[in-house]
């Protein structure tokens, strides 16, 4: 057996391993540089926007309060900085993959480009849905509190969760993530909740249901429930 025949595959494997390792290192280096650049860009963009009174502009346009209402209590300048940093990191990841395998990178990039519009729509759907859920939940809560309904928080919470589940199902369907499963799960969950609530109300709240119906359909207000005689205006 020729010695060269024995050593050649080992050398080839070693070279391939070295090549892979160097590409992996290069890829990690690209990501590391990407993270540093993203961090720098985030700082620069945030500070530049803050200096340009971008936050005040957003205040005036009601954008900041809208974000806060949606649970995103962060300065708009920082949010924009984060967005730019995110884009830089996505680009860095794409570049790092291309150092490993150009064909794979092209394929990934192509799929990413096809996927991005749907992802964008899903994100917008989710943000708008979250804001809407918060708005409706608060509206229901205030209306029920003003009507002196005892379970106001419970009902408004259920409204908020119901809307969020629906929005989440829509968003996931948009990105094509197990679309059928999501829709089926939502239908089962939502239908189940409605039936459960109906049964619970029918069994536990039978008297309350009767009282409510009588109050609205037959009985004039009487006793403690009579309206104030005060003229408010």
């Amino acid at each position, binding site marked *: 057996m020729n010695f060269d025949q024995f050593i050649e595959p080992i050398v080839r494997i070693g070279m391939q391993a070295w090549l892979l390792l160097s590409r992996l290192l290069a890829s990690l280096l690209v990501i590391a540089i990407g993270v540093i650049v993203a961090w720098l860009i985030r700082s620069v963009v945030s500070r530049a926007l803050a200096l340009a009174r971008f936050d*005040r502009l957003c*205040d*005036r346009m*009601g954008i900041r*309060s809208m974000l*806060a*209402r949606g649970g995103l209590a962060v300065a708009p300048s920082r949010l924009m900085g984060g967005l730019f940093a995110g884009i830089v990191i996505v680009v860095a990841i794409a570049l790092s993959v291309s150092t490993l395998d150009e064909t794979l990178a092209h394929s990934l990039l192509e799929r990413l480009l096809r996927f991005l519009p749907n992802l964008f729509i899903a994100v917008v759907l989710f943000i708008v849905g979250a804001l809407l859920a918060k*708005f409706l939940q*608060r*509206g229901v*809560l*205030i*209306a*029920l*509190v*003003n009507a*002196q309904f*005892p379970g*106001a*928080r419970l009902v408004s919470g259920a409204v908020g969760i119901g809307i969020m589940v629906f929005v989440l199902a829509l968003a996931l369907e948009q990105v094509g993530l197990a679309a059928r499963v999501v829709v089926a799960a939502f239908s089962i969950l939502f239908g189940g909740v409605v039936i459960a609530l109906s049964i619970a109300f029918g069994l536990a709240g039978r008297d309350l249901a009767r009282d409510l119906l009588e109050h609205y359909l037959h009985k004039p207000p009487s006793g*403690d*429930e*009579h*309206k*104030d*005689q*005060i*003229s*408010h*205006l």
Partner: protein
Amino acid sequence: MRPVELDPALKRELAAIKSAEIVVGIPSYNNSKTIGHVIRAVMAGLKKYFPDRKAVVANSDGGSKDGTRETVMQAAVDEQTLLLARHPVHPVHRISTPYHGLPGKGSALRTIFQIASDLDAKACAVVDSDLRSITPEWIELLVGPVLEQNFDYVAPYYLRHKFDGTITNNIVYPLTRALYGRAIRQPIGGDFGFSTRLARCYLGKDVWESDVARFGIDIWMTSVALAEGYRVCQSYLGAKIHDPKDPGADLSEMLVQVVGSVFELMERYDAVWTGDVAVETVPMFGFPFYATTDPMQPNLDRMKRAVEIGLRDLAPLYEQVMGEAGVWSRLRARASAGGITAELDEELWSEIVYAFALACHRRQLPRTHLLKSLTPLYLGRVAHVVSRYMESAAEDVEQCWEKLCSSFARLKPDFVKRWGATGRKGGSQ
């Protein structure tokens, strides 16, 4: 801004009348049961107190289906019963016209302002069409100060039950007084006198597609007159008795319309009220008297329950609105000590109203949500006043409003500072 759209028949009538010295406007919508009495009282007032002035009574109707406009045109005054010192020189013209624009009192009054302007009247008055207690003297008291004393705006001063007008007494009166420095006791009374100069000022404002055109017209008229420096006075009209309002009218909706209009006007005129505001007394005409009004049975338990549920379920929202300057922590401390309604005194209530005004200014929450969430606290404040003054005389309750006004005035400098720090400027228009 769209110009006032007048009915073609009205234009022809105005062209025929050419001019008038007095215009009395009556907005209406399905008021056939009461408007006849109002028309008779107005006509009698014009004949008795202004016999030598050319006058027009203008009904601006929102599309009544119950024969309101026919009643307006048919209502007759028996001059024999009026004991007239002088026979009227001019007949009183009567006009009944539909108004255009958003349905509501504001659009109806806009048409009346335009009629007064077109006829180049010297003085105008508007009275509600559902009044049962209007007398001819009201016309003298609303029109007289404008004609004889050159006032631009005459606000009404009614004799009311000590617990009546709780939104007026607890929010609108003390806040308007603190902001503009003049004590208009009934800023949202509904019946007013004004000069045509002021009517033209109203017509020039671009507000007729907003809430002003609907329900916020009364406070808007008063605030514009105060903020733009017109000469303002009050006339004592006696008791105001009118048809009961819609029993289904939602209190929180009332708060949205009335308090929302006050807050909106604060944005518009912040350059005026955040500056140095001179405190001036407002002249009063008429002959004030006090009488016992019908007893009233406020539902205290219901009010107390409302504030308890509100404080429990709306706590995170209240913290967001009143967290600054410790208002929420004080409110919560008193609530946990028990009997919050007993503790909603003048000081704390003024702080709450200012906190809500600031939150509205900063757009911390959607405006409707913010104003509707004030309902439980407002009911708590009403319960506090009712339980404290249940056995007191009306004069004692009046002292309570004076204390409240002092509290609003005392807290105003700090409020102005915080308002300015927010940086949103409305600017007067």
